[in-house]
Protein backbone atom coordinates (compact mmCIF):
# COMPACT_ATOMS: atom_id res chain seq x y z
CA UNK A 1 0.00 0.00 0.00
CA UNK A 2 2.96 2.28 0.68
CA UNK A 3 4.08 1.83 -2.90
CA UNK A 4 0.57 2.45 -4.18
CA UNK A 5 0.39 5.72 -2.24
CA UNK A 6 3.71 6.88 -3.63
CA UNK A 7 2.54 5.99 -7.11
CA UNK A 8 -0.81 7.77 -6.70
CA UNK A 9 0.92 10.99 -5.62
CA UNK A 10 3.49 10.83 -8.41
CA UNK A 11 0.68 10.18 -10.91
CA UNK A 12 -1.14 13.25 -9.56
CA UNK A 13 -4.15 11.16 -8.56
CA UNK A 14 -5.30 13.27 -5.66
CA UNK A 15 -8.53 11.48 -4.70
CA UNK A 16 -6.85 8.07 -4.88
CA UNK A 17 -3.93 9.25 -2.74
CA UNK A 18 -6.23 10.63 -0.04
CA UNK A 19 -8.36 7.44 -0.06
CA UNK A 20 -5.21 5.35 0.36
CA UNK A 21 -4.07 7.46 3.30
CA UNK A 22 -7.45 6.98 5.00
CA UNK A 23 -7.24 3.26 4.36
CA UNK A 24 -3.72 3.09 5.77
CA UNK A 25 -4.75 4.98 8.90
CA UNK A 26 -7.79 2.71 9.34
CA UNK A 27 -5.48 -0.29 9.08
CA UNK A 28 -3.48 1.08 11.97
CA UNK A 29 -0.51 2.29 9.98
CA UNK A 30 1.26 5.07 11.90
CA UNK A 31 1.20 8.69 10.78
CA UNK A 32 4.98 8.63 10.66
CA UNK A 33 5.01 5.77 8.17
CA UNK A 34 2.37 7.40 5.99
CA UNK A 35 4.39 10.59 5.93
CA UNK A 36 7.61 8.86 5.12
CA UNK A 37 5.91 7.46 1.99
CA UNK A 38 4.65 10.96 1.18
CA UNK A 39 8.16 12.29 1.60
CA UNK A 40 9.47 9.72 -0.83
CA UNK A 41 6.76 10.73 -3.33
CA UNK A 42 7.66 14.42 -2.96
CA UNK A 43 11.29 13.63 -3.67
CA UNK A 44 10.23 11.95 -6.92
CA UNK A 45 8.02 14.94 -7.79
CA UNK A 46 11.03 17.21 -7.24
CA UNK A 47 13.22 14.99 -9.44
CA UNK A 48 10.63 15.03 -12.20
CA UNK A 49 10.52 18.81 -12.03
CA UNK A 50 14.32 18.89 -12.30
CA UNK A 51 14.22 16.60 -15.33
CA UNK A 52 11.64 18.80 -17.01
CA UNK A 53 8.79 16.32 -17.03
CA UNK A 54 6.85 18.12 -14.30
CA UNK A 55 6.01 21.82 -14.28
CA UNK A 56 4.33 24.35 -12.01
CA UNK A 57 0.87 22.67 -12.00
CA UNK A 58 2.32 19.40 -10.63
CA UNK A 59 4.26 21.22 -7.90
CA UNK A 60 1.13 23.09 -6.86
CA UNK A 61 -1.00 19.95 -6.79
CA UNK A 62 1.71 17.99 -4.94
CA UNK A 63 1.85 20.76 -2.32
CA UNK A 64 -1.92 20.63 -2.02
CA UNK A 65 -1.95 16.83 -1.61
CA UNK A 66 0.74 17.12 1.06
CA UNK A 67 -1.32 19.70 2.99
CA UNK A 68 -4.42 17.53 2.90
CA UNK A 69 -2.53 14.44 4.03
CA UNK A 70 -0.95 16.43 6.88
CA UNK A 71 -4.47 17.34 8.01
CA UNK A 72 -5.65 13.73 7.77
CA UNK A 73 -2.78 12.39 9.88
CA UNK A 74 -2.97 15.50 12.13
CA UNK A 75 0.75 16.12 12.05
CA UNK A 76 3.12 17.65 9.57
CA UNK A 77 5.86 15.98 7.64
CA UNK A 78 8.67 18.05 9.08
CA UNK A 79 7.94 16.94 12.65
CA UNK A 80 7.16 13.34 11.77
CA UNK A 81 9.89 12.45 9.35
CA UNK A 82 13.28 13.22 10.75
CA UNK A 83 15.60 13.71 7.86
CA UNK A 84 19.14 14.86 8.02
CA UNK A 85 18.94 18.41 6.81
CA UNK A 86 22.03 19.60 4.95
CA UNK A 87 21.78 23.13 6.24
CA UNK A 88 19.63 26.23 6.51
CA UNK A 89 18.46 28.51 3.74
CA UNK A 90 16.57 31.75 4.32
CA UNK A 91 14.43 32.97 1.46
CA UNK A 92 12.09 35.87 0.64
CA UNK A 93 10.91 38.33 -1.99
CA UNK A 94 12.56 41.70 -1.41
CA UNK A 95 10.91 44.92 -0.26
CA UNK A 96 8.45 46.53 -2.67
CA UNK A 97 7.83 43.35 -4.67
CA UNK A 98 4.86 41.09 -3.94
CA UNK A 99 5.47 38.26 -6.44
CA UNK A 100 5.69 34.79 -4.99
CA UNK A 101 5.45 32.07 -7.67
CA UNK A 102 9.19 31.79 -8.36
CA UNK A 103 10.09 32.01 -4.71
CA UNK A 104 7.62 29.25 -3.82
CA UNK A 105 9.09 26.91 -6.46
CA UNK A 106 12.61 27.50 -5.12
CA UNK A 107 11.40 26.87 -1.57
CA UNK A 108 9.75 23.60 -2.62
CA UNK A 109 12.83 22.41 -4.50
CA UNK A 110 15.24 23.30 -1.69
CA UNK A 111 12.96 21.54 0.76
CA UNK A 112 12.72 18.30 -1.22
CA UNK A 113 16.47 18.41 -1.70
CA UNK A 114 16.95 18.26 2.05
CA UNK A 115 17.53 21.86 3.05
CA UNK A 116 15.94 23.46 6.07
CA UNK A 117 14.18 26.44 4.49
CA UNK A 118 12.68 29.46 6.19
CA UNK A 119 10.44 31.46 3.86
CA UNK A 120 9.82 35.06 4.93
CA UNK A 121 7.17 35.70 2.27
CA UNK A 122 6.91 38.72 -0.02
CA UNK A 123 7.67 42.45 0.31
CA UNK A 124 10.13 41.64 3.11
CA UNK A 125 11.77 44.64 4.77
CA UNK A 126 15.57 44.58 5.25
CA UNK A 127 15.17 44.62 9.08
CA UNK A 128 13.15 41.43 8.86
CA UNK A 129 15.81 39.69 6.76
CA UNK A 130 18.52 40.80 9.14
CA UNK A 131 16.63 39.68 12.23
CA UNK A 132 16.01 36.30 10.60
CA UNK A 133 19.68 35.91 9.68
CA UNK A 134 20.52 36.50 13.36
CA UNK A 135 17.84 34.16 14.74
CA UNK A 136 17.69 31.38 12.14
CA UNK A 137 21.41 31.51 11.29
CA UNK A 138 21.21 30.32 7.70
CA UNK A 139 24.30 29.64 5.62
CA UNK A 140 22.51 30.70 2.45
CA UNK A 141 20.12 33.59 1.78
CA UNK A 142 17.98 33.53 -1.36
CA UNK A 143 16.52 36.81 -2.61
CA UNK A 144 13.65 36.78 -5.05
CA UNK A 145 12.32 39.64 -7.15
CA UNK A 146 10.22 39.86 -10.29
CA UNK A 147 10.37 43.58 -11.07
CA UNK A 148 13.28 45.82 -11.98
CA UNK A 149 12.64 47.73 -8.73
CA UNK A 150 14.07 44.67 -7.01
CA UNK A 151 17.57 45.51 -8.32
CA UNK A 152 17.88 48.41 -5.90
CA UNK A 153 15.97 46.67 -3.14
CA UNK A 154 18.46 43.78 -3.32
CA UNK A 155 21.48 46.08 -3.49
CA UNK A 156 20.23 48.05 -0.47
CA UNK A 157 19.44 44.90 1.48
CA UNK A 158 22.86 43.36 0.84
CA UNK A 159 24.47 46.65 1.94
CA UNK A 160 22.39 46.50 5.15
CA UNK A 161 23.44 42.90 5.77
CA UNK A 162 27.04 44.02 5.35
CA UNK A 163 26.54 46.95 7.73
CA UNK A 164 25.07 44.60 10.32
CA UNK A 165 28.32 42.62 10.15
CA UNK A 166 26.60 39.52 8.76
CA UNK A 167 27.78 39.51 5.15
CA UNK A 168 30.62 37.01 5.68
CA UNK A 169 28.30 34.64 7.54
CA UNK A 170 26.04 34.01 4.54
CA UNK A 171 26.22 33.28 0.84
CA UNK A 172 23.60 35.23 -1.10
CA UNK A 173 21.87 34.07 -4.28
CA UNK A 174 19.35 36.03 -6.33
CA UNK A 175 16.76 35.07 -8.92
CA UNK A 176 13.51 35.98 -10.63
CA UNK A 177 11.99 37.94 -13.54
CA UNK A 178 14.56 40.39 -14.85
CA UNK A 179 17.63 39.19 -12.89
CA UNK A 180 20.88 38.21 -14.60
CA UNK A 181 24.67 38.18 -14.03
CA UNK A 182 24.81 41.94 -14.43
CA UNK A 183 22.27 42.39 -11.65
CA UNK A 184 24.28 40.01 -9.47
CA UNK A 185 27.36 42.25 -9.91
CA UNK A 186 25.28 45.37 -9.22
CA UNK A 187 23.69 44.05 -6.04
CA UNK A 188 26.82 42.42 -4.63
CA UNK A 189 25.24 38.96 -4.40
CA UNK A 190 27.35 35.81 -4.69
CA UNK A 191 25.33 34.11 -7.39
CA UNK A 192 22.47 34.50 -9.83
CA UNK A 193 20.31 31.50 -10.69
CA UNK A 194 17.98 31.37 -13.66
CA UNK A 195 15.81 28.58 -12.25
CA UNK A 196 15.01 26.61 -9.11
CA UNK A 197 17.54 23.92 -9.97
CA UNK A 198 20.38 26.44 -9.96
CA UNK A 199 19.28 27.55 -6.49
CA UNK A 200 19.61 23.93 -5.35
CA UNK A 201 23.03 23.62 -7.00
CA UNK A 202 24.32 26.79 -5.32
CA UNK A 203 23.02 25.71 -1.94
CA UNK A 204 24.69 22.30 -2.36
CA UNK A 205 27.97 23.83 -3.42
CA UNK A 206 28.01 26.19 -0.42
CA UNK A 207 26.59 23.90 2.22
CA UNK A 208 27.23 20.42 0.89
CA UNK A 209 24.68 17.64 0.62
Amino acid at each position, binding site marked *: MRQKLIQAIVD*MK*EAEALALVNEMLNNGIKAMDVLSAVKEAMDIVGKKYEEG*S*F*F*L*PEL*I*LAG*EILNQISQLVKTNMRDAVKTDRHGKVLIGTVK*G*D*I*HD*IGKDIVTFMLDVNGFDVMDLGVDVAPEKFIQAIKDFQPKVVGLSGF*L*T*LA*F*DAMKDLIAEIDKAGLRDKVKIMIGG*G*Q*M*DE*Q*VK*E*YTGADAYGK*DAMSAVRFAKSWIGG
Partner: protein
Amino acid sequence: MDSKQITDAMFEKILSPKDPQGNDLAFISPEAKKQYQDNVTRFKNTIEFKKTDRVPVTVFPSMFPLAHAGITVQEAMYDYDKCVSACRKFVLEFQPDCQFGAAAPGPGKFYEILDYKLYAWPGHGVEADHSYQCLESEYMKPEEYDLLITDPSFYFRNFYLPRVFGAMGGFQMLPPLTGTLEMYGLAYNYIPYGLPPVQQTFKALFDAGAEALKWAGAMGAFDGEMAASGYPNILGGFTKAPFDTIGDTLRGTRGIMLDMFRRPEKLIQALEAMTPIMINMGISAARQTGNPLIFIPLHKGADGFLSDEQFKKFYWPTLKQVILGLIEAGCIPFPVAEGGYNTRLEVIKDLPAGRTLWMFDQTDIIKAKEILKDRICILGNVPSAMLQLGTVEDVKDYVKKLIDNVGKGGGFILSNGAFFDKAKAENVKAMVDFTKEYGVY
Protein backbone atom coordinates in the same frame (compact mmCIF):
# COMPACT_ATOMS: atom_id res chain seq x y z
CA MET B 1 -13.63 43.17 -48.11
CA ASP B 2 -11.48 40.28 -46.93
CA SER B 3 -9.61 40.55 -43.68
CA LYS B 4 -6.37 41.77 -45.27
CA GLN B 5 -8.25 44.52 -47.11
CA ILE B 6 -9.75 45.62 -43.79
CA THR B 7 -6.24 45.92 -42.34
CA ASP B 8 -5.05 47.86 -45.37
CA ALA B 9 -8.05 50.18 -45.15
CA MET B 10 -7.31 50.84 -41.47
CA PHE B 11 -3.74 51.79 -42.33
CA GLU B 12 -4.94 54.05 -45.16
CA LYS B 13 -6.97 55.96 -42.57
CA ILE B 14 -4.06 56.03 -40.12
CA LEU B 15 -1.91 57.60 -42.83
CA SER B 16 -4.35 60.53 -43.06
CA PRO B 17 -5.11 61.21 -39.40
CA LYS B 18 -7.93 63.48 -38.28
CA ASP B 19 -8.20 65.85 -35.35
CA PRO B 20 -11.09 65.47 -32.83
CA GLN B 21 -13.28 67.75 -34.98
CA GLY B 22 -12.85 65.44 -37.95
CA ASN B 23 -10.59 67.75 -39.94
CA ASP B 24 -7.20 66.69 -41.30
CA LEU B 25 -4.66 66.70 -38.49
CA ALA B 26 -2.41 69.76 -38.65
CA PHE B 27 1.18 68.47 -38.58
CA ILE B 28 3.72 70.80 -37.02
CA SER B 29 5.78 70.73 -40.23
CA PRO B 30 5.95 68.96 -43.58
CA GLU B 31 8.89 66.98 -42.19
CA ALA B 32 6.78 65.80 -39.26
CA LYS B 33 4.10 64.63 -41.68
CA LYS B 34 6.61 62.70 -43.77
CA GLN B 35 8.18 61.19 -40.64
CA TYR B 36 4.74 60.14 -39.37
CA GLN B 37 3.83 58.47 -42.65
CA ASP B 38 7.23 56.83 -43.04
CA ASN B 39 7.03 55.47 -39.49
CA VAL B 40 3.56 53.99 -40.04
CA THR B 41 4.51 52.49 -43.40
CA ARG B 42 7.79 51.05 -42.11
CA PHE B 43 5.97 49.40 -39.20
CA LYS B 44 3.26 47.93 -41.42
CA ASN B 45 5.65 46.71 -44.11
CA THR B 46 7.90 45.11 -41.52
CA ILE B 47 5.02 43.16 -39.99
CA GLU B 48 4.07 42.00 -43.50
CA PHE B 49 7.67 41.10 -44.44
CA LYS B 50 7.81 43.68 -47.20
CA LYS B 51 10.94 45.62 -48.02
CA THR B 52 11.65 48.69 -45.86
CA ASP B 53 14.39 51.30 -45.62
CA ARG B 54 15.60 50.10 -42.22
CA VAL B 55 14.79 48.11 -39.09
CA PRO B 56 12.05 49.99 -37.21
CA VAL B 57 12.77 50.84 -33.61
CA THR B 58 10.40 51.48 -30.76
CA VAL B 59 10.49 51.68 -26.98
CA PHE B 60 7.63 50.11 -25.04
CA PRO B 61 8.31 51.08 -21.42
CA SER B 62 6.29 50.73 -18.28
CA MET B 63 6.88 53.59 -15.84
CA PHE B 64 10.29 54.71 -17.17
CA PRO B 65 9.06 57.98 -18.76
CA LEU B 66 7.87 59.13 -15.33
CA ALA B 67 11.11 58.42 -13.46
CA HIS B 68 13.03 59.95 -16.36
CA ALA B 69 11.02 63.18 -16.04
CA GLY B 70 11.53 63.24 -12.28
CA ILE B 71 7.96 62.51 -11.22
CA THR B 72 6.60 59.56 -9.27
CA VAL B 73 4.10 57.05 -10.58
CA GLN B 74 1.69 58.40 -7.98
CA GLU B 75 1.95 61.96 -9.30
CA ALA B 76 1.32 60.73 -12.84
CA MET B 77 -1.74 58.80 -11.71
CA TYR B 78 -3.35 61.83 -10.11
CA ASP B 79 -2.17 64.64 -12.36
CA TYR B 80 -2.82 63.80 -16.01
CA ASP B 81 -1.00 66.90 -17.26
CA LYS B 82 2.14 65.82 -15.44
CA CYS B 83 1.78 62.33 -16.86
CA VAL B 84 1.40 63.67 -20.39
CA SER B 85 4.30 66.06 -20.09
CA ALA B 86 6.57 63.24 -18.85
CA CYS B 87 5.53 61.06 -21.79
CA ARG B 88 5.99 63.97 -24.21
CA LYS B 89 9.54 64.45 -22.95
CA PHE B 90 10.13 60.71 -23.35
CA VAL B 91 8.94 60.55 -26.98
CA LEU B 92 10.59 63.77 -28.13
CA GLU B 93 13.87 62.96 -26.45
CA PHE B 94 14.25 59.32 -27.51
CA GLN B 95 12.38 59.58 -30.83
CA PRO B 96 11.14 56.03 -31.36
CA ASP B 97 9.41 55.30 -34.69
CA CYS B 98 6.13 54.57 -32.92
CA GLN B 99 4.95 55.44 -29.44
CA PHE B 100 2.54 53.63 -27.16
CA GLY B 101 0.64 56.46 -25.50
CA ALA B 102 0.60 57.79 -21.95
CA ALA B 103 -1.95 55.35 -20.52
CA ALA B 104 0.36 53.03 -18.56
CA PRO B 105 -0.01 54.69 -15.12
CA GLY B 106 -3.81 54.98 -15.45
CA PRO B 107 -6.17 57.31 -13.53
CA GLY B 108 -5.66 57.00 -9.78
CA LYS B 109 -8.86 58.82 -8.79
CA PHE B 110 -10.91 56.51 -11.02
CA TYR B 111 -9.54 53.43 -9.23
CA GLU B 112 -10.25 55.11 -5.90
CA ILE B 113 -13.86 55.93 -6.76
CA LEU B 114 -14.47 52.28 -7.60
CA ASP B 115 -12.34 51.00 -4.68
CA TYR B 116 -10.35 48.66 -6.97
CA LYS B 117 -8.91 45.74 -5.04
CA LEU B 118 -7.24 43.58 -7.69
CA TYR B 119 -4.06 45.67 -7.65
CA ALA B 120 -1.80 47.39 -5.20
CA TRP B 121 -0.87 50.80 -6.60
CA PRO B 122 1.06 53.84 -5.32
CA GLY B 123 -0.50 54.99 -2.08
CA HIS B 124 -2.55 51.80 -1.96
CA GLY B 125 -0.04 49.13 -1.03
CA VAL B 126 3.08 50.12 -2.97
CA GLU B 127 5.42 53.09 -2.77
CA ALA B 128 4.87 56.32 -4.68
CA ASP B 129 7.57 55.61 -7.27
CA HIS B 130 6.71 51.96 -7.86
CA SER B 131 4.59 50.33 -10.54
CA TYR B 132 1.24 48.76 -9.67
CA GLN B 133 1.24 45.02 -8.86
CA CYS B 134 -1.49 42.42 -9.12
CA LEU B 135 -2.95 40.98 -5.90
CA GLU B 136 -3.71 37.53 -7.17
CA SER B 137 -6.33 35.56 -5.32
CA GLU B 138 -9.22 33.17 -5.79
CA TYR B 139 -11.80 35.79 -6.83
CA MET B 140 -13.90 33.09 -8.48
CA LYS B 141 -14.74 30.03 -6.41
CA PRO B 142 -14.24 26.56 -7.93
CA GLU B 143 -17.94 25.75 -7.67
CA GLU B 144 -18.85 28.79 -9.79
CA TYR B 145 -17.63 27.40 -13.13
CA ASP B 146 -21.16 26.62 -14.33
CA LEU B 147 -22.28 30.16 -13.61
CA LEU B 148 -19.36 31.53 -15.61
CA ILE B 149 -19.87 29.10 -18.50
CA THR B 150 -23.62 29.70 -18.75
CA ASP B 151 -23.46 33.48 -18.84
CA PRO B 152 -20.02 35.08 -18.49
CA SER B 153 -21.36 38.65 -18.48
CA PHE B 154 -23.88 37.92 -15.74
CA TYR B 155 -21.17 36.15 -13.74
CA PHE B 156 -18.79 39.07 -14.13
CA ARG B 157 -21.39 41.66 -13.13
CA ASN B 158 -23.06 39.87 -10.25
CA PHE B 159 -20.15 37.91 -8.77
CA TYR B 160 -16.70 38.96 -9.95
CA LEU B 161 -17.02 42.75 -10.10
CA PRO B 162 -18.43 43.12 -6.55
CA ARG B 163 -15.43 41.15 -5.27
CA VAL B 164 -12.75 43.26 -6.96
CA PHE B 165 -14.47 46.67 -6.74
CA GLY B 166 -15.66 47.77 -3.32
CA ALA B 167 -18.08 50.22 -4.96
CA MET B 168 -19.86 47.60 -7.07
CA GLY B 169 -21.60 45.73 -4.28
CA GLY B 170 -25.01 46.78 -5.64
CA PHE B 171 -24.49 44.64 -8.72
CA GLN B 172 -25.09 41.53 -6.65
CA MET B 173 -28.77 42.48 -6.47
CA LEU B 174 -29.37 42.94 -10.18
CA PRO B 175 -31.41 40.42 -12.20
CA PRO B 176 -30.20 39.11 -15.57
CA LEU B 177 -30.82 41.51 -18.47
CA THR B 178 -32.42 38.67 -20.39
CA GLY B 179 -35.42 38.78 -18.02
CA THR B 180 -36.77 41.75 -19.96
CA LEU B 181 -39.21 40.05 -22.37
CA GLU B 182 -42.87 41.06 -22.21
CA MET B 183 -44.96 43.90 -20.84
CA TYR B 184 -46.47 41.57 -18.29
CA GLY B 185 -44.36 41.47 -15.15
CA LEU B 186 -41.69 43.69 -16.63
CA ALA B 187 -41.46 46.06 -13.68
CA TYR B 188 -40.51 43.24 -11.29
CA ASN B 189 -37.16 43.09 -13.05
CA TYR B 190 -36.49 46.72 -12.31
CA ILE B 191 -37.23 46.83 -8.60
CA PRO B 192 -33.56 46.39 -7.65
CA TYR B 193 -32.65 49.60 -9.48
CA GLY B 194 -34.75 51.46 -6.94
CA LEU B 195 -32.82 50.09 -3.97
CA PRO B 196 -30.16 52.24 -2.26
CA PRO B 197 -27.16 49.83 -2.67
CA VAL B 198 -27.77 49.55 -6.42
CA GLN B 199 -28.24 53.29 -6.74
CA GLN B 200 -25.00 53.86 -4.83
CA THR B 201 -23.17 51.57 -7.22
CA PHE B 202 -24.55 53.46 -10.22
CA LYS B 203 -23.64 56.75 -8.61
CA ALA B 204 -20.05 55.52 -8.25
CA LEU B 205 -20.07 54.37 -11.87
CA PHE B 206 -21.23 57.80 -13.07
CA ASP B 207 -18.44 59.45 -11.10
CA ALA B 208 -15.89 56.92 -12.30
CA GLY B 209 -17.08 57.36 -15.88
CA ALA B 210 -16.68 61.13 -15.63
CA GLU B 211 -13.14 60.68 -14.32
CA ALA B 212 -12.31 58.12 -17.04
CA LEU B 213 -13.56 60.57 -19.65
CA LYS B 214 -11.38 63.33 -18.27
CA TRP B 215 -8.37 61.00 -18.34
CA ALA B 216 -9.16 59.73 -21.85
CA GLY B 217 -9.30 63.35 -23.05
CA ALA B 218 -5.74 63.88 -21.82
CA MET B 219 -4.59 60.58 -23.39
CA GLY B 220 -6.25 61.33 -26.74
CA ALA B 221 -4.81 64.84 -26.84
CA PHE B 222 -1.35 63.40 -26.19
CA ASP B 223 -1.63 60.91 -29.06
CA GLY B 224 -2.87 63.69 -31.37
CA GLU B 225 0.00 65.94 -30.38
CA MET B 226 2.55 63.17 -30.90
CA ALA B 227 1.06 62.25 -34.27
CA ALA B 228 1.28 65.91 -35.31
CA SER B 229 4.96 65.79 -34.34
CA GLY B 230 5.62 62.66 -36.40
CA TYR B 231 5.14 59.87 -33.84
CA PRO B 232 2.20 57.55 -34.53
CA ASN B 233 0.53 55.34 -31.96
CA ILE B 234 -1.00 52.36 -33.75
CA LEU B 235 -1.96 50.47 -30.62
CA GLY B 236 -5.65 49.75 -31.01
CA GLY B 237 -6.58 48.04 -27.78
CA PHE B 238 -5.96 44.96 -25.72
CA THR B 239 -7.28 41.54 -25.00
CA LYS B 240 -6.04 38.40 -23.29
CA ALA B 241 -5.48 34.71 -23.75
CA PRO B 242 -8.56 33.05 -22.19
CA PHE B 243 -6.28 30.95 -19.94
CA ASP B 244 -4.78 34.16 -18.52
CA THR B 245 -8.19 35.80 -18.17
CA ILE B 246 -9.25 32.96 -15.91
CA GLY B 247 -5.82 32.38 -14.34
CA ASP B 248 -4.82 35.99 -13.66
CA THR B 249 -8.05 37.56 -12.58
CA LEU B 250 -10.63 34.91 -11.68
CA ARG B 251 -9.11 31.73 -10.25
CA GLY B 252 -5.47 32.78 -9.66
CA THR B 253 -2.41 30.75 -10.66
CA ARG B 254 -2.92 28.21 -7.92
CA GLY B 255 -6.64 27.88 -8.60
CA ILE B 256 -6.39 27.39 -12.35
CA MET B 257 -3.52 24.93 -12.05
CA LEU B 258 -5.42 22.80 -9.55
CA ASP B 259 -8.45 22.97 -11.86
CA MET B 260 -6.34 21.40 -14.62
CA PHE B 261 -6.34 18.23 -12.50
CA ARG B 262 -9.58 18.51 -10.56
CA ARG B 263 -12.05 19.78 -13.16
CA PRO B 264 -10.32 19.86 -16.55
CA GLU B 265 -13.57 19.64 -18.58
CA LYS B 266 -15.11 22.58 -16.75
CA LEU B 267 -11.94 24.61 -17.20
CA ILE B 268 -11.89 23.92 -20.94
CA GLN B 269 -15.59 24.81 -21.23
CA ALA B 270 -14.93 28.07 -19.41
CA LEU B 271 -11.94 28.85 -21.64
CA GLU B 272 -14.17 28.26 -24.66
CA ALA B 273 -16.93 30.45 -23.20
CA MET B 274 -14.44 33.30 -22.76
CA THR B 275 -12.95 32.99 -26.26
CA PRO B 276 -15.55 34.91 -28.34
CA ILE B 277 -15.64 37.53 -25.59
CA MET B 278 -11.87 38.00 -25.78
CA ILE B 279 -12.06 38.21 -29.58
CA ASN B 280 -14.81 40.84 -29.46
CA MET B 281 -12.93 42.82 -26.83
CA GLY B 282 -10.03 43.27 -29.26
CA ILE B 283 -12.19 43.93 -32.30
CA SER B 284 -14.41 46.52 -30.66
CA ALA B 285 -11.36 48.36 -29.29
CA ALA B 286 -9.81 48.41 -32.76
CA ARG B 287 -13.04 49.75 -34.25
CA GLN B 288 -13.23 52.46 -31.62
CA THR B 289 -9.62 53.60 -31.95
CA GLY B 290 -9.21 52.89 -35.65
CA ASN B 291 -5.91 51.17 -34.89
CA PRO B 292 -5.32 47.50 -35.77
CA LEU B 293 -2.62 46.47 -33.29
CA ILE B 294 -4.13 44.46 -30.40
CA PHE B 295 -1.86 43.98 -27.41
CA ILE B 296 -2.15 40.53 -25.79
CA PRO B 297 0.10 40.16 -22.71
CA LEU B 298 0.85 36.45 -22.25
CA HIS B 299 1.51 35.16 -18.75
CA LYS B 300 0.86 31.60 -17.70
CA GLY B 301 1.87 29.79 -20.86
CA ALA B 302 5.54 30.77 -20.59
CA ASP B 303 8.42 28.27 -20.37
CA GLY B 304 8.32 26.47 -17.04
CA PHE B 305 4.69 27.31 -16.26
CA LEU B 306 3.15 24.46 -18.26
CA SER B 307 4.40 21.29 -19.95
CA ASP B 308 4.18 21.03 -23.72
CA GLU B 309 1.18 18.81 -23.38
CA GLN B 310 -0.55 21.15 -20.93
CA PHE B 311 0.20 24.15 -23.16
CA LYS B 312 -1.32 22.42 -26.16
CA LYS B 313 -4.34 21.23 -24.22
CA PHE B 314 -5.23 24.18 -22.01
CA TYR B 315 -3.46 27.31 -23.19
CA TRP B 316 -2.93 27.34 -26.93
CA PRO B 317 -6.26 26.25 -28.52
CA THR B 318 -8.27 29.20 -27.23
CA LEU B 319 -5.39 31.69 -27.60
CA LYS B 320 -5.04 30.53 -31.20
CA GLN B 321 -8.76 31.10 -31.74
CA VAL B 322 -8.44 34.61 -30.29
CA ILE B 323 -5.50 35.36 -32.60
CA LEU B 324 -7.29 33.97 -35.67
CA GLY B 325 -10.54 35.74 -34.77
CA LEU B 326 -8.72 39.06 -34.53
CA ILE B 327 -6.93 38.49 -37.84
CA GLU B 328 -10.26 37.62 -39.45
CA ALA B 329 -11.54 41.07 -38.44
CA GLY B 330 -8.49 42.80 -39.89
CA CYS B 331 -6.64 43.32 -36.60
CA ILE B 332 -2.95 42.62 -36.04
CA PRO B 333 -2.63 40.54 -32.87
CA PHE B 334 0.38 41.65 -30.79
CA PRO B 335 1.12 38.90 -28.27
CA VAL B 336 3.74 39.86 -25.71
CA ALA B 337 5.48 36.71 -24.52
CA GLU B 338 6.57 37.69 -21.03
CA GLY B 339 9.30 35.46 -19.59
CA GLY B 340 10.61 32.82 -22.01
CA TYR B 341 8.77 31.24 -24.95
CA ASN B 342 11.53 28.94 -26.21
CA THR B 343 9.49 25.77 -25.86
CA ARG B 344 6.43 27.28 -27.59
CA LEU B 345 7.98 28.47 -30.85
CA GLU B 346 7.24 25.28 -32.76
CA VAL B 347 3.59 25.57 -31.73
CA ILE B 348 3.06 29.19 -32.70
CA LYS B 349 4.96 29.10 -35.99
CA ASP B 350 1.99 28.04 -38.14
CA LEU B 351 -0.04 31.22 -37.61
CA PRO B 352 -0.96 33.08 -40.83
CA ALA B 353 2.13 34.70 -42.34
CA GLY B 354 2.62 38.44 -41.95
CA ARG B 355 -0.46 39.01 -39.81
CA THR B 356 0.90 39.06 -36.25
CA LEU B 357 3.62 40.79 -34.26
CA TRP B 358 5.25 38.96 -31.33
CA MET B 359 7.25 40.65 -28.58
CA PHE B 360 9.83 38.44 -26.90
CA ASP B 361 11.83 38.99 -23.74
CA GLN B 362 13.86 36.05 -22.46
CA THR B 363 13.27 33.90 -25.51
CA ASP B 364 16.37 33.03 -27.55
CA ILE B 365 15.42 35.51 -30.23
CA ILE B 366 17.92 34.22 -32.80
CA LYS B 367 16.46 30.75 -32.50
CA ALA B 368 12.98 32.30 -32.68
CA LYS B 369 13.91 33.89 -36.02
CA GLU B 370 15.11 30.52 -37.34
CA ILE B 371 11.84 28.86 -36.42
CA LEU B 372 9.36 31.67 -37.19
CA LYS B 373 11.18 32.58 -40.42
CA ASP B 374 9.23 34.92 -42.69
CA ARG B 375 5.88 34.20 -41.08
CA ILE B 376 5.92 36.02 -37.77
CA CYS B 377 7.34 39.48 -37.18
CA ILE B 378 9.46 39.68 -34.02
CA LEU B 379 9.77 42.66 -31.69
CA GLY B 380 12.41 42.77 -28.96
CA ASN B 381 14.48 42.20 -26.93
CA VAL B 382 17.08 44.45 -25.24
CA PRO B 383 17.02 43.19 -21.62
CA SER B 384 15.77 45.42 -18.81
CA ALA B 385 18.88 44.68 -16.74
CA MET B 386 21.12 45.87 -19.58
CA LEU B 387 19.11 49.09 -20.01
CA GLN B 388 19.40 49.84 -16.31
CA LEU B 389 22.84 48.53 -15.43
CA GLY B 390 24.77 48.10 -18.68
CA THR B 391 26.84 50.57 -20.70
CA VAL B 392 26.15 52.25 -24.02
CA GLU B 393 28.66 49.84 -25.56
CA ASP B 394 26.79 46.82 -24.14
CA VAL B 395 23.58 48.11 -25.69
CA LYS B 396 25.16 48.82 -29.08
CA ASP B 397 26.78 45.36 -29.20
CA TYR B 398 23.46 43.77 -28.36
CA VAL B 399 21.54 45.84 -30.93
CA LYS B 400 24.16 44.95 -33.56
CA LYS B 401 23.78 41.27 -32.77
CA LEU B 402 20.00 41.53 -33.10
CA ILE B 403 20.09 43.42 -36.38
CA ASP B 404 22.70 41.07 -37.88
CA ASN B 405 20.84 37.92 -36.90
CA VAL B 406 17.17 38.73 -36.49
CA GLY B 407 16.91 41.75 -38.80
CA LYS B 408 18.09 39.76 -41.80
CA GLY B 409 15.34 39.57 -44.41
CA GLY B 410 13.00 41.94 -42.54
CA GLY B 411 10.20 41.09 -40.17
CA PHE B 412 12.01 42.51 -37.17
CA ILE B 413 11.33 45.54 -34.97
CA LEU B 414 13.97 46.49 -32.47
CA SER B 415 12.73 47.24 -28.96
CA ASN B 416 13.20 46.55 -25.28
CA GLY B 417 12.21 43.01 -24.22
CA ALA B 418 10.15 43.67 -21.09
CA PHE B 419 8.25 46.68 -19.78
CA PHE B 420 10.75 48.59 -17.66
CA ASP B 421 10.48 51.22 -14.96
CA LYS B 422 14.09 52.31 -14.68
CA ALA B 423 16.95 52.67 -17.13
CA LYS B 424 19.96 54.84 -17.90
CA ALA B 425 18.74 57.43 -20.37
CA GLU B 426 21.90 57.09 -22.46
CA ASN B 427 21.23 53.37 -22.89
CA VAL B 428 17.69 53.95 -24.15
CA LYS B 429 19.00 56.66 -26.45
CA ALA B 430 21.74 54.34 -27.76
CA MET B 431 19.19 51.60 -28.44
CA VAL B 432 17.13 53.91 -30.66
CA ASP B 433 19.90 55.93 -32.31
CA PHE B 434 22.14 52.99 -33.08
CA THR B 435 19.26 51.06 -34.67
CA LYS B 436 18.50 54.01 -36.92
CA GLU B 437 22.16 54.16 -37.88
CA TYR B 438 23.12 50.49 -38.14
CA GLY B 439 19.73 49.05 -39.11
CA VAL B 440 19.61 50.51 -42.62
CA TYR B 441 18.90 47.81 -45.21
